[in-house]
Structure formats: structure tokens, C-alpha cells
């Protein structure tokens, strides 16, 4: 193997304590970064590794000594000497409640790892009535490429940020309405084909709950043929232009069923365009 190591610009190191362990992190790192470094598993939903923290979901909250309120681990930067606790009764109670409130209002059935977190924090969404009732609504199927199933939307804003100023610069969607009526919407709620959407699918890439999904996946889930145990993911390079985006092809039964892109790719950081994301029908069987 090569002896080359790629290093970031040098940063001052900061010492803090996480769950009684001394941890050294780089200046500017978040508490979540420190937890990940220590192998302390922290639930996150609205946080995205390629996006600015939005502090919307509060499922990652931790206790910081001297802080009156719990703080979101995903956005709070580590300070020298900071004492962080991630598994106190107060933290566990907050995470349990966040999960229960989300689960009672939103369909989390396709949210990765959520069942594991329910168990870990002994969360029972049915305490607040029928599960996933508040935002229940039919999925919006208005094109052949992807589906918007807002019954699964936790309003984390990641799709809005990916579509707008943080990546794509298209601004096809935003949060509309107030209070319980808040929802992600195109301009005037028009169907996608009439909106500014360019079908880059970068919103699907960052969606944490499966509210946004490939039409193929949506249809397969609907007819019961979605089988993750028969899927492999293979990284290759997009066949179209000269940018050279890495495509992570999820293949089930010799068919592409989903296309992603590695978020740590130096070429496009998980972002694609319509051709890379959806332009593979020519190799469909």
C-alpha cells in the first residue's frame, strides 16, 4: 500500500470529557464528532454529514455540565474542558420522548435503526395515541422517478437545504404553512413536473426517513418485493459527463433499484444530477 496520507489543515487540539473519558478532538469539532470518535453511538435524524446542522429533531441531545438545557450534540462545538454526558436519565428521557412524539405523528417504518432506538430508550409511541396519525396522508406520486411520501416526513429540512443554498441551488422546495400545517412543498404546491425540480435526487440522498424514495423502491415496497437481503451495493463511475461522480448502485435480482453516491467523495460529496441518479433505464432488464 501507499505511504501517502492525506491530512487536513492543522488544527488546535481540544481536550474534553465524554462519559468520564478524556477525549481530544480538533478545534471546531462537534460533540457528535467526539462521540463518534469514542464509539459512543448517538441517534441522529436531522443531522447530515454533508449539511449544516439544523437542530430540528433533538434526538441527539446530551448533557453538558454547566448548561441549563440539554444541548444538541450534532451542532454544539466542543470547548476546552467541556464535560459531556450522553447516557444520563435526563438524556435518556429526552431521547425517549423525542422518539415517541415523532413516532406518534410520523410514519417511521422505513427509518433506518429507529426500532433499535425505541428499544434502547424504551420508547412507546402509542402512549400518545395511534402511531403516525398526525401527518398521515397519501404519497405524492406525480412522476416516474421518485415519490414524496410526506406521511414519513419529520420536517428535518435536509431536503430543503440540499435542494437550495447548500448544494443544488435549485430551490424547488421549501417549508410552507404554519404549526401543524407546516409541510415541505413546491411553489404553490404544484406537482413536481410543474415545479423547478431538476430531479437531481440530492434530496433523496439526505432524507433520513424514506419519505423521499425512488419510484422503483416505492413500488417494490408496495407489492412486497423489496428485499434488502437480496441487495448488494457496488460503487462505480457514472457513464455520462466528464465530472466522474461515483455511483453506489443498489442491485436486487440483477436490477438497479437505487442509486446513491458516497458522501465522502471528493468529486461531488454525494450529489448527482438527473442522468446519474435516474438515467440507468438502458441497463434495466
Amino acid at each position, binding site marked *: 500500500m501507499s505511504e501517502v496520507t492525506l491530512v487536513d489543515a492543522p488544527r488546535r487540539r481540544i481536550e474534553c470529557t465524554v462519559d468520564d473519558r478524556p477525549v481530544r478532538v480538533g478545534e471546531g469539532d462537534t460533540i457528535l464528532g467526539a462521540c463518534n470518535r469514542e464509539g459512543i453511538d448517538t441517534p441522529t435524524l436531522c443531522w447530515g454529514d454533508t449539511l449544516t446542522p439544523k437542530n430540528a429533531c433533538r434526538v441527539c441531545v446530551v448533557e453538558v455540565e454547566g448548561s441549563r438545557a440539554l444541548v444538541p450534540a450534532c451542532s454544539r462545538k466542543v470547548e476546552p474542558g467541556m464535560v459531556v454526558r450522553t447516557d444520563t436519565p435526563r438524556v435518556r428521557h429526552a431521547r425517549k420522548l423525542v422518539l415517541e412524539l415523532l413516532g406518534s405523528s410520523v410514519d417511521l417504518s422505513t427509518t433506518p435503526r429507529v426500532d433499535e432506538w425505541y428499544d434502547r430508550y424504551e420508547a412507546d409511541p402509542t402512549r400518545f395515541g395511534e402511531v403516525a396519525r398526525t401527518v398521515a396522508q397519501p404519497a405524492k406520486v406525480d412522476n416516474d422517478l421518485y415519490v414524496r411520501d410526506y406521511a414519513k416526513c419529520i420536517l428535518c429540512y435536509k431536503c430543503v437545504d440540499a435542494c437550495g443554498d447548500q448544494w443544488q441551488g435549485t430551490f424547488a422546495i421549501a417549508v410552507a404553512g404554519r404549526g401543524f400545517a407546516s409541510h415541505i412543498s413546491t411553489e404553490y404546491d404544484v406537482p413536481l413536473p410543474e415545479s423547478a425540480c431538476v430531479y437531481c435526487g440530492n434530496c433523496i440522498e439526505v432524507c433520513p426517513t424514506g419519505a423521499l424514495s425512488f419510484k422503483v423502491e416505492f413500488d417494490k415496497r408496495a407489492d412486497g418485493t423489496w428485499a434488502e437481503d437480496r441487495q448488494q451495493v457496488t460503487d*462505480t463511475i457514472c457513464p455520462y459527463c466528464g465530472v466522474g461522480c461515483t455511483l453506489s448502485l443498489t442491485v436486487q435480482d440483477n436490477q438497479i433499484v437505487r442509486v446513491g453516491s458516497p458522501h465522502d467523495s471528493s468529486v461531488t460529496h454525494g450529489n448527482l444530477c438527473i442522468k446519474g441518479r435516474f438515467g440507468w433505464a438502458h441497463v434495466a432488464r
Partner: protein
Amino acid sequence: MLAALRRGAKLFVVDPRRTSSAQWAHGWLSPDVGSDVALANAVAREIIHAGLADGAFIDRATVGYAEFAASVEEWTLERAEAVTGVPAASIRELAHTYATAEHAQLCWTLGITEHHNGVDNVLSLINLALLCGHVGRYASGLNPLRGQNNVQGGGDMGAIPNRLPGFQDIEDDDARAAFDTAWGTEVPPTYGMHLSQMFDAMEHGDLRALYVMGENPAQSEADSTKAIALLQSLDHLVVQDVFFTKTAELADVVLPASASWCESEGTVTNSERRVQRVRKALDPPGQARDDVDILLDMASLLGHTWTYGRPGDRRSIAEGIWQELRSLSPLHAGMSYERIEALGGIQWPCPDEHTLEPSFLHGRLWHDDPAERGRPAPFSVVLNSPPVDALDDDFPLRLTTGRRLDSYNTGVQTGRFSSPRRRAETIDLFPADAEALGVLAGERVRIVSRRGAVEAPVRLDTGLRPGLAFMTFHFPDEVDVNVLTIDAVDPKSGTAEFKASAIRIERLPVPAAAV
């Protein structure tokens, strides 16, 4: 680029059409199609006259400055405005912004190269970079943005008529000797033909058999009526492709191939010279076979046994071929498959396994030691040369062709996915031009060039400049736009002048039923 804009970078877009990139730009310059050299020379003159040229860099690292400076002297801002149609103040602003930026890049695509003087267009941009020292430094330079995923790699691997793998000159005896030894044969010491020369040779009867791999020249060549006739005149045509293309329909033998990007193993090289791994995710359908297997069988039938890697192991076979390339191409010598995979791709040059070179080229030009600095970079005297297909009273409109976001080239691949953004081919006209012609949006018209005619509905586009029309070439089965384009080629690059055809618009007779 959007990320750079958010961090405070400035963007100037030079394009006859107001593209979506232009919507983000600090300045949009819309030159008349085919006046790029006039614009570049005027920018150069302004930089020189404003005292913004990097004299120290020019003295140390370049040659030919005096002749170049004299040659652009005639390109005053006023004259450039008259020739290009770009306001003098905009040219001045671009010149000053470019020259005074700490880092600046010139990026271009086919709007620069698909002209009969495409090479001159590029040379005129190189002049600007040399003038300001915007080359050979981090975040500065000249970036041809490649339009196809492996057009860089294809050239690097020697799939061009004057180069051996590793971009080594075929006329270089030492380079050729290494290949002679490795391959146990004598590599012909002369340049081959590029695509346009091949069509010329077909026309003169010198080229009688053609083996086409993964290209659809029956629809992608300029003046396609002529191209198809020449393909039909061949004694023998072999087409190896993923699809039964229009070119394949003309073939004597068709070899169904696998899709290299997801049914095979290997590498491609992107615009930033990054060699990246392509991997097999799907089994090819039916009788489709891997390109490598087809070529190995072809070699075998011609009496050569080529063995690479472990039989049946696609990755191993691809890696075996790659190892041979590494042994012959100093640019790629340091790129093992392991290392390419670990680093997410490696940019050439990469001469050894222990280092990575800077991501930019030509850093030597800044070296203090003249020996390390090496051969100085030459300025070129470039003259403006308008498009071959001149406008006149019979053909008064300028047609330029290009792509739309959701489609790709002749649509062989993208025609098969259901894009909500796709609309059928149109002839895009500037509203005032359409009004003068008396045609309405949606009206089907006949578009006539000196070579042929097609029909398409009118679409109005305020992002065009007056006198300019636009069509794509994505739907050749419905509207074969390359019937209109001219096959005037750049003598150095062999690229045809797709970007500049002279056309007229004719109204169709009103159907009897509608009268």
C-alpha cells in the same frame, strides 16, 4: 462552482445563450457565435494596456510575448464590441477581474472546441492564462470540462491517432521502442487518422472497412446524410455496441457488448485527470459480452494469445491489463488498483507508488531554477476567423447545437428513462426573430441549411441573442439535427463546426383541413 460562489468567488459566463450557469454569474457576456478569438484578443489587449499583465512571469516562463502583444493591438474594446456584440464595458470588466484575481480559472466545453478553428480558440485562452500567470498554481489554470465520462481516459490510453498509451507521441522513437519490446511487434511510426480524416478517406475510397465501438456516427456526425452514405459505401462495417444503434443497422457484423460502466471492470479518467475504478454491478443480458473478451477473441483469431489475470475473474483480468499499462506509461506508474480504490481515484501524473503530485499541472513554470523551469510556454498569435457556414440573405440565422440537462448526445442511453423534464426537439428562436418571421410558439416550421432540412416546432427563448437559434441533437430519430450541421473541421483537432450553421426558417403550408 456554486460552492465557490458561496465562498465569494466571482463567475463570468461567456456564452451566446443565457445558460443556467449564466443565471448565477456576476457577468454574462454573449458573443456572436464564432467570435471567441476576437473576444479573447480584446481581453488580452485590455490587460496589457491596463498594465495588469504579469511581466515577471512572462519574462521568466514564456516565449513569443512581443509578437503576441503586437497581434492583439488591433483588438480595441470598440472593435471587439463591433465584432462580438459584447459591450466594451463588459469586456473591460472581465479583463480587469480576471487579471487582478489572485486565483483564476478558465473553464470551457464544446462551445470553444466545436469550431473549424477550435484549436485557435483554445490557444487564445492559453494566451490569457500566460499573460496573467494564472497557470501552474493551485486553484488557477485552464480547465477543458470534458463532455463524456472517459474522453480524457480514452486519449490517455492511446485511443487517438497520434499517441501511445500514457499520452506518449507515436513519433517518439524511445517511447515506441518500449511498446515494441513489451508487445513483441513493431508499432507503426506514423500518426493514424482521426474520425474526420477517416470519413475523408472513405470518401476517397482509401478506407474500405471500419470497426466502430460504442459510437453512433450515423447520427452524431455533422452532415449526417453524407456520413450515412459513406458508412453504407464501405466494403465491411463492424459495430460493437450496447445497443442496436442506427450505425449498427448499417453494419455487416454486430457484436453485442456489455455496458462498461456497470457490467464490467476497469477504470475511467474524468475531467480533472482522476483515474477512477469502474465496477461490475450487473450481469450483461443475453449474448452481450465484455468488450475485453471480444477483443481477446479477436486477437486470438488474428493469431495472438493475450492473457491477463485469472480467467473468468473480471476484476483480475482488468487489473492485469492495467498492470501492463502501468509498466508502459510513466504517468500511471504509481497507480495500483489498491491505491486507486483507497484514495477514491488518483490524478495523473503519478510516477511512483509513494507520492502524489499536486492536483494542477505546469507548476514547473514557477520554478526559480531555469533548468527546473524547463521549456518556456509559448504565446500564440491567433487570428479571428468567422464560421465557415457564412450568413447571407438565403441563410440569415445562426444555428448552434447543444445538450439539455436530462439528455445525453444522440439519446441512445438517456432516451430510455422517463424524464419529467424532457420535451421533444424544438427550434428555439429569439422572440423578436420569430415575430419578424411571422411564426408562433409551437408552430411547426421547416429549418433549412445548405445541406439539408428538418421540421420542428418553434419555442421562444429570451435567453438567446437576436439572430441566434438553438437545437439539441438528442432526438435524431424524430428530428435529425445533424442533417443541418456542417462538416467543416478544424485541421488540427479534427472536430467539426457543430456550433455554427447558417439556416433559414420556412413556414409550412397550412394543411387544407385547417383553412
